[in-house]
């Protein structure tokens, strides 16, 4: 499909030809498969044009640039991460529906798309869901919540935070570009060579995968460093490790996993690039190359990655279950130990991703047992959450519903995981839809439900108004029901021997199961659509659902002790922490909503254009590499390095918020708090909820009197 070009055209445009555009391909060969490809490309292009036009029409470019793109505020970066995740989730879910439609219609028939196109679909679906949906989503939540929970003003490295976001965004942009210029890899999200080597995949597909993933892994590594340093060094006075909210613990473990697990991914993608660009022989068939090095290193990243995806959700569930049961977290210490145990064990099990690739029974047995060991700390967590609910004042709010659905569904997924962790059984079902069903069974409840729950739980904190609970419940019903409909048939199909990544199916007996799975995919999409409707309805009705005081759920961590949305500087005065659940304790002991004795000037980082500049330059550099346009690649590689250097010469990097302004903002909010009516838990989903919880007794003597 990709032709090598020569001469001047090659110097200028590399391997880029007209045939790279899906529209041209669809024009030359108007098959349904090509038209779907061109349609998807058009959606990206038209969407981008519409977005640009809308922003221009609204005259919002300057606002976006100064308030969002160049910001170093962890809260805004967190929101942008989640927004990015939402966009990518939409694309990858549409692809999931296409995958299911293909298999349901291609029973002894060609179906919608051609094999190559189908392979691109499952590759982009997987790559996006892991690297550009789940990762940005959880990083976004961590970014927003962790500094607020530990009583910090920002992350340890705000500039690095911005760079990390823009690198991830650049990777996402490459994923989108592959829809309209060229093609994507057909080698699956794990990109196994030798199939992804030049000998078998000559086009630009694997190069898109390599560079998009490299950008993402680089971004994630910076996030890991940043989050770990923030938690180690910027906890408020008194906030000992065992007083941190559990979400901070899971974020810390996630960050440490990122620090150690991202390098293998970076190494493996760059070595594959060495093979493809420089003719090296790491994973090639000839030249002594050994694909097993790829498998080992990829999963040395890939397995900890599973826990990078799941641990933050465990943290969210811990916060949500405790808040909506009005109880302190049961077995806090055991939850912390379980989290750290999972983080350590996650590095000991990577081989179970390739039991069938010839290491022999002894090695397989050792890794099988190690794998099953992870079930123990995970089981501890499930019991802790159940006991947290026990005799609590449980309210079935949407985040709580997601948490409960998670616990039940995740346990089932864990059982099928035990099946797969047993090597002889794995030989039976590996590479079938059984595996697909299993990891979706872990990642949809274990990551996505957690992310959605976190989004709904902290949304009022970030924007100052609650999300519509009715649409939240509708969305929950779709996500929960859709999951079972879409993936339980896959267990049956997998056990019956249907291979994964199959473009055409030859056994009519699979038909009913594939139909159910397709229906489930549609229900899941309805779940996503209702999330968007919920957002729209909530913004429309925001005046009735304002919670400016900032504590709509009578929750426990420090993040609820500030206004909603919080001021740019998070805390007027850095709090001193004497207990676990610091804010909850203060509410019950006349310590909340108290004016500070003295306000001080606050230094915040100035906005910085380096993040977006480095992101754009790195993205263009990778684009040049993908298409072998060497002048673009070198020009923009130089541009990003020079930006970093130029930034190091900048000395005037902070601005000061005067104490008077801090005090004025704080006093206005405190006055609001003392004028508001506390809301009992039974009414927290009504417009009476202004973000002040009942049970709190304003102490007039210490208040504004």
């Amino acid at each position, binding site marked *: 499909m990709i032709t090598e070009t020569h001469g001047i055209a090659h110097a200028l445009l590399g391997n880029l030809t007209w045939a790279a555009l899906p529209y041209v391909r669809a024009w030359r060969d108007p098959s349904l498969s090509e038209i779907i490809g061109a349609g998807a490309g058009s959606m990206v292009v038209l969407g981008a044009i519409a977005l640009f036009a809308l922003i221009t029409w609204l005259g919002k470019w300057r606002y976006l640039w100064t308030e969002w793109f160049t910001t170093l505020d962890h809260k805004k970066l967190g929101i942008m991460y989640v927004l990015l995740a939402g966009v990518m989730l939409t694309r990858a879910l549409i692809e999931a529906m296409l995958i299911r439609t293909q298999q349901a219609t291609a029973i002894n028939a060609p179906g919608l798309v051609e094999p190559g196109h189908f392979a691109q679909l499952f590759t982009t679906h997987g790559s996006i869901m892991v690297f550009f949906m789940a990762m940005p989503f959880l990083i976004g939540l961590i970014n927003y919540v962790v500094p607020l929970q530990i009583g910090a003003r920002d992350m*340890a*490295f705000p500039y*690095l935070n911005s760079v990390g976001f823009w690198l991830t965004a650049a990777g996402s942009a490459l994923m989108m570009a592959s829809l309209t210029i060229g093609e994507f890899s057909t080698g699956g999200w794990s990109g196994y060579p030798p199939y992804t080597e030049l000998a078998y995949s000559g086009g630009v597909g694997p190069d898109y995968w390599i560079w998009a993933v490299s950008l993402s892994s680089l971004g994630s*590594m910076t996030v*890991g*460093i*940043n989050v*770990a*340093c923030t938690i*180690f*060094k*910027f906890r408020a006075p008194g906030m000992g490790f065992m007083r941190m909210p559990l979400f901070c613990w899971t974020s810390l473990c996630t960050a440490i996993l990122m*620090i*150690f697990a*991202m*390098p*293998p991914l*970076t*190494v493996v993608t760059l*070595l594959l690039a*060495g*093979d493809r660009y*420089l*003719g*090296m*022989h*790491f994973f*090639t068939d*000839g*030249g*002594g*190359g*050994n694909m097993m*090095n790829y498998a080992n*290193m990829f999963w*040395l990243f890939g397995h900890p990655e599973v826990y990078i995806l799941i641990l933050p959700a465990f943290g969210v569930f811990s916060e949500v279950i405790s808040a909506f049961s009005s109880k302190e977290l049961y077995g806090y210490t055991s939850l912390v130990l379980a989290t750290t145990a999972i983080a350590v064990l996650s590095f000991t099990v990577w081989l179970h991703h390739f039991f069938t690739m010839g290491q022999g029974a002894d090695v397989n047995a050792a890794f099988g047992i190690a794998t099953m060991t992870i079930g123990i700390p995970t089981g501890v967590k499930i019991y802790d959450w159940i006991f947290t609910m026990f005799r609590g004042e449980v309210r079935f709010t949407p985040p709580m519903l997601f948490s409960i659905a998670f616990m039940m569904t995740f346990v089932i997924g864990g059982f099928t995981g035990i099946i797969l962790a047993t090597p002889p059984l794995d030989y039976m079902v590996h590479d079938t839809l059984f595996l697909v069903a299993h990891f979706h069974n872990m990642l949809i409840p274990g990551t996505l439900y957690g992310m959605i729950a976190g989004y709904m739980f902290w949304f009022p904190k970030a924007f100052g108004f609650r999300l519509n609970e009715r649409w939240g419940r509708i969305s929950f019903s779709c996500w929960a029901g859709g999951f079972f409909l879409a993936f339980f048939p896959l267990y049956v199909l997998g056990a019956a021997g249907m291979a994964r990544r199959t473009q055409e199916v030859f056994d009519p007996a699979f038909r009913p199961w594939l139909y159910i799975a397709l229906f489930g995919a549609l229900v899941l999409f309805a779940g996503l659509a209702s999330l968007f409707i919920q957002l729209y309805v909530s913004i429309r009705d925001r005046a009735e659902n304002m919670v400016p005081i900032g504590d709509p759920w009578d929750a426990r961590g420090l993040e609820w002790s500030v206004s909603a949305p919080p001021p740019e500087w998070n805390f007027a005065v850095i709090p001193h922490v004497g207990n676990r659940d610091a804010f909850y304790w203060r509410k019950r002991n006349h310590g909340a909503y108290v004016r500070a004795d003295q306000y001080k000037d606050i230094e915040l980082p100035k906005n910085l254009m380096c993040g977006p500049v480095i992101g754009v330059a790195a993205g263009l550099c990778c684009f040049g590499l993908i298409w072998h346009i060497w002048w673009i690649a070198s020009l923009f590689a130089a541009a990003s390095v020079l930006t970093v*250097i130029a930034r*190091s*010469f900048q*000395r005037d990097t902070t601005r000061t918020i005067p104490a008077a302004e801090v005090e004025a903002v704080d006093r206005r909010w405190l006055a609001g708090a003392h004028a508001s009516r506390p809301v009992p838990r039974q009414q927290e989903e009504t417009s009476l909820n202004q973000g002040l919880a009942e049970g709190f007794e304003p102490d007039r003597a210490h208040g504004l009197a």
Partner: protein
Amino acid sequence: MSSGPVSPALRHAGLNLKYASREEAEQIESDVFGFWVFLMSDAVIFALLFALFGTSLEATVGGPTLASVVKLAPAFIETALLLTSSFTFGMASIELKRTHKFTRRHRHRAVGWLLLTWALGIAFLGMEAHDFVTMAGEGAVPDRSFFLSAYTVLIGTHGLHVLTAVIWLPILLMQMYMFGLDRPLKVNLIRLSLFWHFLDIVWIAIFSIVFLQGAIR
């Protein structure tokens, strides 16, 4: 800004510079801590490349072997250059460390040591480049075999790191003349010194695992 004396507990393991205040010391401590964490992550990269190199030793496909590509004499000189550069960076650090009087004279000495470090780094890179060219002349090119790919990437990654440090150093010297020894510069000098010593440690591993192994094979 409180400006009490800096307690020893606040001082990180590494280069202690003159701190204006407790707050500055704390800030520098956390900034440098972040770099330690980065180095841990970077160390994982080298660990993987060493592992890869280990699995590649037999994969020569009839081409040059480790014994045939390794030349101990240049490797020895390169090692000497790099270790000496770490020593000279250490001397620069001592000059920068004068906590009570960082005079013009001290600055000149520090700059002198840093320039010497820089020259040693460049000499190292020059010799390494020469090695690769010689190897290419003998047909030991990275696309010849898995072994040569792994060899090139392991040593080349270390070389790229040294190149980064060699680009970084004059930038910091320029900033020293433009801004004096201010906080960002202190942080970056500490980071660069850590980076430099880290690369030294990696090189010692390379010397032992690659060159010595090649010599005894």
